[in-house]
């Protein structure tokens, strides 16, 4: 019957609209992005099997905004001693010989209107894995978290410095157990 057809059409339209809206809300979210790197560096071997602490290489994360990609010289701290040779290690040595920096492909890209400071998070006891996922199990690093503002806020709210709002202030201050650290002000990240 035509009437049912029209109804079904309407329902279909609503469903399509909903799906479209969901798609739209994922624009710019690159969860799962794991580009190929100029040197196939396996985090699994380094951080996982050999248990090298993240901050050994990404030392900037302690003091700087940027965690930083380690200079090739840091790689050589170990690889000049280790005997194992692979094609990838050869590549590394080659770049050093040629004084040619390695153009790594950034995996985790934040928009530039967000100020993110690694050191602040590291010093506050946030585990690298909280945002970067189980890097120690990854052969090739990929983006695990959506890195959206809503996602950031989830964690910030759990560790909120302050109970916000008239309502929550009364309720939350009693139940808050975690060490209060995270800011919820817009200007904590946007300036």
């Amino acid at each position, binding site marked *: 019957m035509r009437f049912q057809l029209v109804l079904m059409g309407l329902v279909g339209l609503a469903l399509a609209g909903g799906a479209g809206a969901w798609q739209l809300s994922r624009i710019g979210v690159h969860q799962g992005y794991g580009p190929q790197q100029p040197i196939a560096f396996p985090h699994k071997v380094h951080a996982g099997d050999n248990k090298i602490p993240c901050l050994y290489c990404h030392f900037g994360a302690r003091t700087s905004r940027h965690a930083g990609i380690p200079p090739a010289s840091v790689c050589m701290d170990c690889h000049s001693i280790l005997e194992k040779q692979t094609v990838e290690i050869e590549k590394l040595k080659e770049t050093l010989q040629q004084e040619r920096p390695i153009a790594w492909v950034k995996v985790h890209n934040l928009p530039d209107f967000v100020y993110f400071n690694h050191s602040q998070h590291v010093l506050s006891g946030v585990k690298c894995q909280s945002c970067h996922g189980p890097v120690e199990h990854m052969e090739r690093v990929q983006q695990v978290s959506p890195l959206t503002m809503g996602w950031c806020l989830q964690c910030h709210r759990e560790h909120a410095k302050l109970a916000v709002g*008239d*309502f929550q202030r009364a309720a939350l201050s009693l139940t808050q157990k975690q060490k209060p650290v995270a800011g919820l002000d817009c200007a904590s990240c946007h300036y």
Partner: protein
Amino acid sequence: MSSTFLVATFSDPDALVRAVVAVREAGFKVYDVFAPYPLHGLDEAMGVKRSRLPWVTFCVGLCALALALTFQFYTSVLDWPLNVGGKPDNSTLAFIPICFELTVLLSGLATVAALFLRARLYPGKTAALLAEGVTNDTFALALRRRESGFDVHRARVLLEQNGAERVKEKEAEL
């Protein structure tokens, strides 16, 4: 399911009203009247009850009001209370305009939707026209012809007596 109707056409709306009264007095049930504009006084003549559609308006309006208020309260007070100009999180007075607008919007749309549903009006529907010109200058009275106990002849005579210009039998799906 199609049925057969006895359709009388009039050019004078007053005559139609008179015919409706006469037909009903004679024990016939008026299936419907078709007219280019709403004939006032016909409701009583036909015995059409006042529509309950305003209840839809009222109920949906009430819900919309509650929804709007809750939504604004939730977003401004519960979900993320932000310090906007030092004003209290629950600035209820500032929420009133939107409550009102949403009430009007949703109840209005719901009422029209209810009308379309109730009257089975939807795009693509083929108009079942029992007489030509009912959307122009013709007024038509339709009696549904049932299998039993429907005296076609009596009805025809009655209608013609009351000013029907033409009385025809027509099969239609309504």
